[in-house]
């Protein structure tokens, strides 16, 4: 009678393939991080406290958008902030010190539309990341729609661009100085040009 559960128990991943015991260092690191978050936690801090300016992006399918932004672009939803209204969701996602809000298209009140319906976008998300090479590799591996391949821009940043499933355009970049500081290689400085 418990057959169905027995099969399910056998599907438990560590019964199929034993996990390596977790690296103790993982817990040490996580605990340190937690204790430092606890030490600096401000109960009154609202979502907006990190960033007083943040864009609101419209997506017809908000859950698909959250999934994509987290998996492909490594944003992180502030899960406890989510407001689920049944037919739509409002959500806030963090990347670095920045925040984006996303919600449904709303032509009546806010007059915002999904780029997919508009056939165009009028805003581009500009994001600095810690390691743009790794960020790019992950995005590509996760099937990002890359609209500008990773390249070194003349003004001293490595960058790429990708479009999300509804057509919002994302630009990810890292400054050469930052790349060099983490041990990455950057282009030789170009000789000054006469002008």
């Amino acid at each position: 009678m418990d057959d169905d559960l027995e099969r399910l128990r056998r599907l438990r991943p560590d019964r199929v393939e034993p996990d390596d015991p977790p690296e103790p260092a993982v817990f040490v690191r996580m605990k340190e991080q937690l204790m430092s978050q606890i030490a600096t936690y401000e109960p009154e801090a609202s979502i907006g406290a990190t960033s007083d300016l943040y864009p609101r992006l419209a997506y017809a399918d908000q859950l698909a958008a959250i999934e994509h932004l987290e998996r492909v672009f490594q944003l992180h939803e502030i899960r406890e902030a989510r407001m689920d209204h049944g037919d739509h969701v409002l959500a806030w996602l963090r990347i670095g010190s920045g925040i984006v809000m996303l919600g449904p298209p709303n032509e009546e009140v806010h007059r915002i539309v999904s780029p997919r319906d508009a056939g165009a976008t009028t805003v581009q998300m500009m994001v600095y990341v810690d390691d743009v090479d790794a960020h790019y590799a992950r995005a590509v591996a996760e099937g990002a729609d890359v609209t500008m391949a990773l390249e070194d821009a003349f003004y001293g940043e490595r960058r790429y661009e990708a479009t999300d499933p509804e057509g919002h355009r994302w630009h990810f970049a890292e400054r050469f100085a930052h790349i060099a500081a983490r041990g990455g290689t950057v282009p030789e400085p170009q000789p000054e040009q006469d002008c």
Partner: protein
Amino acid sequence: MEVEPDAELIAASLDDPERFGPLFDRHASVLYRYLIRRVGVDEAEGLLGDVFRIAFEKRSGYDPDRPDARPWLYGIATNLVAHRRRSEARRLDAVARLLGTVPTIDGAASGSDPTAERAAGRVDAEAGWPHIADAVAALPAGERDALLLYAWEDLSYAEIAEALAVPVGTVRSRLNRARAHLRELDVVSGR
């Protein structure tokens, strides 16, 4: 020395936040393994940090009548998993495919003859482990959560109810529905 129940640490941490720390020591390993089982090791570490951060931020709402905080932490972790359905489905799929190719290491589920085990493994592959994984992945999230907390994590009905913030009767009906789904599948692939 008496060990302070989780509930007391949580209450004490309202005035003295550092008192929250031992909760991590007590529960991090179990929750980490739970997260690995559900979404894989790559995402589990980040989620583990979120579980304890969110728990800390929400600690004033903790029910002090529940001495053991583990079901509550399972609930927070489960909420976070809910938004990684694709990782979860990939994880299930990978495990199902493995089940077809390696002998199970769960002694209880198989005999001691390795040849027979391997043969059984092949039979399992043919009997449709991937289909079972698909069926689990396709369950409504509430049913899948209840089912996996029960079958993988060995939580009681009451603990699952606490984790998912639903009445015990709801846990029971979710488990019944989920199991009915899986049994249906057995009929289909049972030959």
